[in-house]
């Protein structure tokens, strides 16, 4: 589903990723870990074309990202749901509208949108706050809105960047439960985190990023 072959990426000469290769299978649930600043977010961005690789090949779904055309990128992004590390919620729009946005760009019928958004907000336990602006939500609640937005369009891939950033253990567990649920329905899930308690004892593949390359790949 996601394949990196000798991918390198640098920002203004600072090498962040060098010759990174790995493959994540369809329906897999995998983790990407490493210290802060190592390049986890950068690697995820390469997958949804927010950054472009300097060299190497990236294949996502059927798309060869080296050859993907500008006008095709929106369609790639629609099949990849992203939980952004910095949330990227629209502060002047309600919780409902924020989540609905991911469907509006799909040109979905308003009635259907209402149904889908209602369902997903129930799932993240925020249905009762759907008319509230994000700034009036707690950090954990905002996090859940972002997750709801990423999953509402039922994308084939979910990328979650530090989805439990600064949440307590219980809330983190609940959120991980959500991702397992999404994965069980068939989506490929890749979670980037430096919190090793998220993947300990999960029996999933974990990619350790260090010094610009994948140092090891362990099933934990």
């Amino acid at each position, binding site marked *: 589903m996601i394949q990196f072959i000798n991918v390198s990426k640098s920002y203004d000469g600072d090498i962040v990723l060098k010759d990174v290769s790995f493959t994540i299978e369809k329906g897999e649930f995998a983790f990407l870990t490493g210290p802060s600043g190592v390049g986890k977010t950068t690697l995820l961005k390469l997958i949804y074309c927010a950054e472009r690789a300097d060299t190497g090949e990236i294949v996502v779904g059927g798309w060869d990202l080296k050859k993907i055309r500008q006008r095709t990128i*929106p369609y790639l992004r629609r099949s990849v749901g992203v939980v952004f590390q910095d949330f*990227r919620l629209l502060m002047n729009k309600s919780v409902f509208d924020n989540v609905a946005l991911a469907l509006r760009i799909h040109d979905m019928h308003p009635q259907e949108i209402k149904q889908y958004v209602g369902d997903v907000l129930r799932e993240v336990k925020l249905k009762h706050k759907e008319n509230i602006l994000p700034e009036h939500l707690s950090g954990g609640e905002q996090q859940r809105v972002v997750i709801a*937005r990423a999953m509402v369009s039922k994308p084939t891939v979910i990328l979650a960047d530090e989805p439990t950033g600064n949440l307590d253990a219980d809330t983190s567990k609940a959120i991980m439960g959500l991702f397992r649920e999404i994965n069980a329905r068939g989506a490929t899930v890749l979670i980037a985190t430096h919190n090793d308690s998220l993947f300990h004892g999960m029996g999933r593949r974990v990619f350790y990023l260090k010094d610009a390359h994948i140092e090891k790949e362990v099933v934990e």
Partner: protein
Amino acid sequence: MRMVLFAVETALKSLWHEKWINLLTVLSISIGLLIISAFAAITQNLDSVLKRWSRDFGLVVYLKDDLSSEAEDTLKAFFQNDSDIREIRYISKEQAIEDLRLTLGRQKSVLEGFDNNPLPSSFELTLKSELLNAAYVERKASEIKALNGVDDVQYGEKWLSSLSALANIMKVSAAFLGGAVFIAIAFITYSTIKIFFYRRKDEIETLKLLGATASFIRLPFLLEGLIIGVMAGVLSSIGLFSAYELIVSKVSEFLPSINIVMVPLTLKAYFPAPLAGALMSFLGSIVAVGKIKY
């Protein structure tokens, strides 16, 4: 289709949200349009005055005093055969003096000093109105003057040439002014939409990351530009209409002759400027949004 509806909704929200900037933009554009419309209206009026006046425009052909009636008939036949001439009116010496008496009214006694009629007989020729330009009329007049039995040809050459020159000047300057104002309109909308675009940069970035297409992002801004242009156009048309009504009703109280000069504006006068304004405003917003890069 739903995308369009959503874009309309987004555009209207933004119009309302930024109502003061938008109001200012609409006002600036409508002032520009009003200037063009006023110019166009004046040109149109001038044109119609010229047309109306030239309908009665005639060449007066004074005949030599001792001309025989056969010679007069020959001339008349000549004029009748000329397809440029619409109407021929013969005025005999007697008719001429009678006309003059009528015109002079109580002062007609000045004519009593003459033993015999000093006025020549004449033909009044009316030319087809589409031929009424100064150069043509001048040529025609000199042609006729060269005919046998013609003493002199008179026409309002000064009037004709200055009026048509004025109309031409008005037309050219209206075109120039119009061009300048239209470009200004595009610039005004350009800067307004550019401001909105920058203000919503973060939101646009998020939309792109969620998979919105370029047209999905672009459309609300283009609609906003279009709506601004249309509103400004409507406003300027209302302004033009009121100003025109005001002039006709108020000014004619003091200056009744203005009714002769002013023609009622046709619908034609109200549509082009708003349409062009909307178009230019739309173009301005297209340039402002530019290419959406991924």
